[in-house]
């Protein structure tokens, strides 16, 4: 059968796709949360987080060129380490993306309230309503939301650039005093916190098969988009820090008296241009966050779908609705989780858990690449090979776990919970229905052959 994809994405398209997937809650909502942990050094936290994400992006890109199946992370880990690890990673990646979407929606609700005079307690209700709308949109099916997203991204980048330029005049340098007051620990915690800001870079992997000259454009696309975003985050976050009173950032959130602001960009704009600035930034934020939440629902519904096709989840989840021609059941399950998270989990925990699961999954992605390379299975023929192997991957794994340990007890429990839950689900459901081994199985089998088991 002829390949149904055409390689027509150049370097520029690759970079914009990647940036489009990254811009969202990381810039519009998270800076204040990170500021609370790290003080002005939150700027450093953004750079650190980017460095730890990079290896996973390279690993994922390499595996994507060897396995052009949709399903992404889950498929790579399943094929590398077998269905048990696949189940854990699939559920982890699914939860992480849904967390990210729900967090984006809560932030979106907060920005919306800046435009419409309603009480702060309504943020959750607004977020729930928007979530329901996005779920319905996805079930009915959309044609052009990808295109809309790339237009929105361009607009957002322009707006951010203008924001930073304007801020250059108004920044109060004394606000960077106490840069080191929260210490290294605070910076690492903040980095773990904002980790999810870069998760979108792996979107490149999902279009890897469409990128022309992948050996050259894949690593460049990843490095350039990461580089640009690191600079952008650094400047914007520096502007936010410089424009705002520390108190505004850390205490003006909805609900309890000391919760951090969910609209740091608008707080900054208010300092800069008054009411008009707030309105403009709020509109830009709403557009970016809507598009991010929508893309998140679309992408996360692929995980239950792919697992279902591999018999690791009930078969109905892979069914495409005759009426809408969308995988309705997979979207519904994702939607129910989304609504439940918004309704029952506090916002800050949403952000933490999204990052924690992402760090966990990215660490496993790096391990999966090492497994593939070590196993030397015939079917693994990537057209792009990650530079710096295996040191880059090892850095990614170690760095990821280092961040994870700094996140406090709940995210660690959450990550452990996903692992335990994934294993339990596999034992109860998947194990009896699948007999795949993965590349890891090949390595283990080879070891057994080399070292005959001594019986005693």
């Amino acid at each position, binding site marked *: 059968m002829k390949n149904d994809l055409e390689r027509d994405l150049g370097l520029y398209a690759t970079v914009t796709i990647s940036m489009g997937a990254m811009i969202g809650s990381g810039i519009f909502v998270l800076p204040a949360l990170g500021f609370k942990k790290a003080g002005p050094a939150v700027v450093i936290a953004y750079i650190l987080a980017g460095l730890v994400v990079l290896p996973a992006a390279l690993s994922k890109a390499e595996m994507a060129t060897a396995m052009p199946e949709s399903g992404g992370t889950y498929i790579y880990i399943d094929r590398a380490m077998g269905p048990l690890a696949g189940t854990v990673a699939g559920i982890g990646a699914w939860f992480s993306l849904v967390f990210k979407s729900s967090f984006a929606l809560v932030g979106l609700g907060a920005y919306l309230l800046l435009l419409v005079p309603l009480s702060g307690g309504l943020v959750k209700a607004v977020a729930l309503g928007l979530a329901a709308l996005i779920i319905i949109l996805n079930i009915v099916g959309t044609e052009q939301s990808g295109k809309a997203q790339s237009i929105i991204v361009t607009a957002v980048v322009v707006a951010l650039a203008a924001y930073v330029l304007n801020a250059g005049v108004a920044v109060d340098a004394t606000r960077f005093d106490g840069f080191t007051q929260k210490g290294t620990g605070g910076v690492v915690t903040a980095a773990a916190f904002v980790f999810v800001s870069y998760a979108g870079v792996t979107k490149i992997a999902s279009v890897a098969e469409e990128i022309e000259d992948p050996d050259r454009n894949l690593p460049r696309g990843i490095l350039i988009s990461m580089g640009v975003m690191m600079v952008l985050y650094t400047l914007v976050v520096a502007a936010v820090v410089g424009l705002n009173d520390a108190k505004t950032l850390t205490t003006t959130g909805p609900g309890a008296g000391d919760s951090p602001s969910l609209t740091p960009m608008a707080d900054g704009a208010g300092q800069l241009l008054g009411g008009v600035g707030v309105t403009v930034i709020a509109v830009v934020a709403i557009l970016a966050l809507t598009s991010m939440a929508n893309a998140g629902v*679309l992408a996360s519904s692929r995980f239950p779908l792919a697992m279902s096709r591999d018999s690791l989840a009930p078969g109905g989840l892979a069914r495409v609705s005759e009426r809408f021609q*969308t995988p309705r059941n997979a979207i519904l399950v994702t939607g129910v989780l989304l609504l439940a998270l918004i309704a029952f989990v506090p916002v800050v925990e949403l952000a933490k858990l999204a990052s924690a699961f992402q760090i966990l999954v990215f660490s496993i992605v790096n391990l999966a690449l090492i497994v593939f390379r070590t196993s030397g299975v015939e079917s693994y023929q990537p057209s792009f090979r990650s530079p710096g192997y295996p040191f880059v991957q090892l850095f990614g794994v170690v760095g990821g776990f280092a961040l994870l340990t700094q996140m406090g007890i709940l995210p660690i429990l959450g990550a452990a919970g996903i692992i335990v839950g994934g294993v339990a689900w596999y034992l109860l459901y998947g194990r009896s229905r699948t007999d795949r081994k993965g590349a890891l199985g090949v390595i283990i089998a080879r070891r057994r052959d080399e070292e005959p088991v001594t019986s005693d």
Partner: protein
Amino acid sequence: MSITHNVLIPLELPDPDPIPSVLVDTLASMEVVVLGHYGLPEQTPPSAGRNQFETKANTELDGLAQPLAEAGASVTTRLVFGKARDKTIDRVAVEEDCDVILTPGQAKTVERIVVPMRGAENLDRITSFVGELLSATDASVTLFHTSESSDRLPGEELLAAATDRLVETGVAPDRINQQLSEDEDVERSIVELGEDFDLLVLGETEPSLRDRIFGTVPAQVTADTEDPAFVVRDIDAPES
């Protein structure tokens, strides 16, 4: 000088309109590729769609291609699942070496064919294809030119040159009409023309900046007219 033509017929699955039977007759002596494009929303991975709908879609596609094969055309079918319809059509046209793309539309008869001409490029292929259509039918052809769309060659000369080529391929001169228009709006006048004719043959054009924003003239015309439209690709032109 003989050019062989390979016609691509893209159909939107599921439940497409059948290819009008008068068109089937005009295609009887040609090579035809019937492309079933099964449109899926962004939410659905093409592989999942293929898994579930492939059998049904293939049956549908074969049913649509059958009249063509029965009429004597040599038919290939392709089935593609995805969302980028236009991109798929372009890609399959290149892969299958198709130089003409047909948008089937509605037609009860093929008596009056209109050929809006823009310039001298691709003239050989267009006239050769029109010649073949005329030999398969009793239709008359009107060569049409609007002054605004001219490059280098004046309209009268262009139409005269095209007429000569057609006569060379064996078309009786009394079946060929010429029409010059002063209208500025090329697409609108072509679409209006379509109301007086049964079938359009258009040359593919290099997209200009304006085209990239609003769509090329052939793309707009085929979108606006109910008539069947053949778009002749400029495959002899060097790759830009």
